[in-house]
């Protein structure tokens, strides 16, 4: 799908997966079903996942295993979702979290 996806690897084989559509800031993108949201965004060339609440600094992922909370975003209206370990699903609405975000009932 993009040049960041590894096509050939001397050791690993990546199985065929289903391509699905999702939205980032209302724009449509494609990713593989079940891969982490942050991985799909990264492959689509999106590295800034949110802005920091106090100094408005760009934030990307760091640890990729759900430890550091650098990658938290708003997903389908819910804030503080760790996108590096949350699987991507068809039609997901993903947004940058502004500040601390707003908890919706």
């Amino acid at each position, binding site marked *: 799908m993009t*040049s*960041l*996806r*590894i096509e050939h*690897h*001397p*050791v*690993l084989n*990546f199985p065929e997966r289903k391509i699905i559509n999702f939205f980032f800031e209302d724009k449509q993108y494609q990713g593989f079903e079940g*891969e*982490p949201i942050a*991985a799909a965004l*990264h*492959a689509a060339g999106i*590295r*800034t*996942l949110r802005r*920091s609440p106090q100094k408005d*600094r*760009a*934030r*990307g*992922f*760091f*640890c*990729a*295993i*759900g*430890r*550091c909370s650098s990658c938290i975003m708003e997903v389908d209206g819910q804030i503080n979702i760790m996108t*590096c*370990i949350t*699987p991507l699903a068809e039609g997901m609405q993903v947004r940058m979290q502004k500040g601390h975000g707003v908890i919706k009932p």
Partner: protein
Amino acid sequence: MSRNTEVFVIGGGPAGLSAAYVAAKLGARTLLVDDSSRIGGQLIKQTHRFFGSSNRDAGIRGITIADKLQQDIKDVSDKLTVLENTAAVGFYHNKEAGILSHSAYERVSYQSAIVCTGATENSLAFENNDLPGIYGAGGVQTLMNVHGIRPGQKILMIGSGNIGLIVSYQLIQAGVEVVGLVEGSPAIGGYLVHASKIRRLGVPIYTSHTILKALGTDEVEGATICRVDEKFQPVPNTELDIKCDCICLAVGLTPLIDLFQQAHCRMVHVGELGGLVPLHDSSMRTTNPEVFVAGDASGIEEATTAILAGRIAGARAYESVHGKSPQAEEIVAEAREELRTLRSGSTGERIRWGRERVMKEVGEC
């Protein structure tokens, strides 16, 4: 809801899987929880071959070791329950713990707990170290070896320990250009065999150098590095700008210890083991007699030693529930002997020092 188990294992990496396997194989009802969707811990992204020991996993890739451990636990499925996507969130008094599984909270009452929470990656202080494009070495491995995505086109590696060297090679295998490897010390930290591999592939190695800052406003566009003196202080007028779109930090790991503190285990700071670790004896028992430890949480080392320490903890946790057993004793004796071999020689020196300090503290040497 609540669950009841004899042995409660937290963490499904090499240590936790081995501990759970041994405890269940010996006959203890065992529950293993792991917060990720796929057990195996960090082995599932390690495509390199392990040195191992003569009778354990020598020359085998990390991903193959993970498959093997996952197969092993299937043999004991009558005694062992595995919960993925489940995080242990707290210890209480009276041998109770809380777990969070798919947003549902449950209580677990156990007789012995084995905590194998592993470690978290260190960052490094430099200007702009929070920019998107600066990733931990483990994060880079996960992205590329588990999810099949390159972190970027050109990457600068910081740190020349074994992780920095191995991940540099894996990046090259994945088609990423490694534009340099920066090391503060005058000599490379990891094994020469790994360093020679990337040197042969033409990666510039900057020893006695450090990163001063990352360049770019919203994303990494490069880095400024400079020479350091014997006291690791930057030498003026030696700055060098390097173009890259990612910076990888391979500057060590710190044991994940929150749960031990909740369980009131006494902690000790040992630099050689990565920082604060729970005090434990050679049976991997902490100062809280119901809580055992194994793997990186007891001191940063590697997967083969984590497997062996996990086997010891699993056997001892079984015994603390069911009483002394000759089979458990045999497993412990065998694992201890293998650990001695693995930690011998000059490469195991730091670990031996660190472990000796822990053992002295508990009065075992």
